[in-house]
């Protein structure tokens, strides 16, 4: 005697259902990614780095700084002997903070300069 078996066959989902489910899943995934991007958490940039942080990385700019240094050397004027008895010479005017004019090294045997000063 043969026992009859009951076979329950599940129905295949309809094509429309599959299409709608796929579309819904796609929309959900797209929405989630869009939310993340809008929140500044771009998954393509890594788990902890935000877009703003990436953009504020210090910029390294290579700049060439040229400092112009002017070295001034005061050379005493050559002696000018005129026919008159008086002439005058070098006059870098000075102020309280003005440095003394640079003078040429004097010969060893040269006498001390003659100075007219208030006394």
């Amino acid at each position, binding site marked *: 005697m043969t026992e009859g078996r009951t076979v329950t066959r599940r129905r295949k989902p309809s094509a429309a259902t599959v299409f709608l489910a796929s579309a819904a899943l796609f929309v959900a995934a797209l929405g989630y990614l869009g939310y993340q991007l809008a929140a500044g958490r771009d998954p393509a940039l890594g788990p902890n780095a935000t877009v703003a942080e990436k953009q504020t990385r210090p910029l390294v700019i290579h700049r060439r700084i040229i*400092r112009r240094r002017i*070295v001034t050397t005061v050379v005493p004027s050559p002696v000018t002997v005129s026919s008159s008895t008086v002439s005058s*010479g070098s*006059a870098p005017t*000075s102020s309280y903070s003005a440095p003394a004019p640079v003078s040429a090294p004097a010969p060893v045997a040269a*006498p001390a300069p003659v100075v007219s000063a208030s006394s």
Partner: protein
Amino acid sequence: MRDGTVEPYDEQFDAMGCTVRVMIDPSSGDAGRDPREAGRQAREFILDFDRRLSRFRADSELTALNRDLREEVPASDLLRAAVRAGLRAARSTNGLVDPTLVDQIEQAGYRESRAGLAGVPIPELLSSAPTRESASPSPGRSWRMFEVDDERGIIRRTPGLRFDTGGTGKGLAADMVAGSLADFPRFLVNCGGDIRIGGNEASGSPYDVLVEHPASGNMPHRFKLGRGGIATSGINVRAWLREGGSPGHHLLDPSTGEPCWSGLLGVTAIGPTAVEAETLAKAALLSGPTGARKILSHHGGLMVHEDSQVEMVGRATIRLRLPEVRLRTSEVAV
């Protein structure tokens, strides 16, 4: 002396409350005088000049004159020459350089020699100085009360009036020494900045004379002087703080008897002689910038303003030569 050649004489010593320097170039050959002997005599003369004409010495001839109650006082050739030089300075400046302000200078705080004493820094002096104003002569013109009579060898004046040879003394001393050195090729006598230069070959070989800036102490200018005088007058050296803290110095306004604040710190003047240069420098400083330009215009000179700027005046500006300035520019990459 070395190999028969006499070396130039150059000596400094203290006298008249300042440093005196005498420089004498010897004559070529053996005919000339020994500059060392002439220098020694110059030194003795200046020391004697100081002893006899200092108002700070109780035993000086000048002090004796000022104490004498007679109207006519016998006076030596030297004292008469000194008084005559002071009166000439007063006449030529119409009383601006007044040698009879002894009472006033003592009241201002200058009773004793200030040789070796430090002055007051210029900024401190200026910060508490009164309004800037040029000086003017004393209405009384008491210097006119003095008269020098060389024939009788006396000085006549109203008893009680005192005379101060300090305003022209250094220049006069330099000029008197110069008279004894005229036969040397070249000489220079510097009595505390009042300088006389001369000699029979001096014009062809002028001396370099540096001028000291009264505020900074630098030497902002150099004159070449072959003959004549040059002198500097300023408020930076003989300056002090009076009781109460008000500043004082030795250059008085004759009209007020008070230290003069004209807007100038110092003046250097060139003149035919040292005493004339000294008179011009004092008169210019007392006159303030505008008057100083006029006073210095003939022989030349320079003045230092209160803001420390140096202004050349007169002939000196024509021959002003700026130093050759060499600029070397380097660029350094850092």
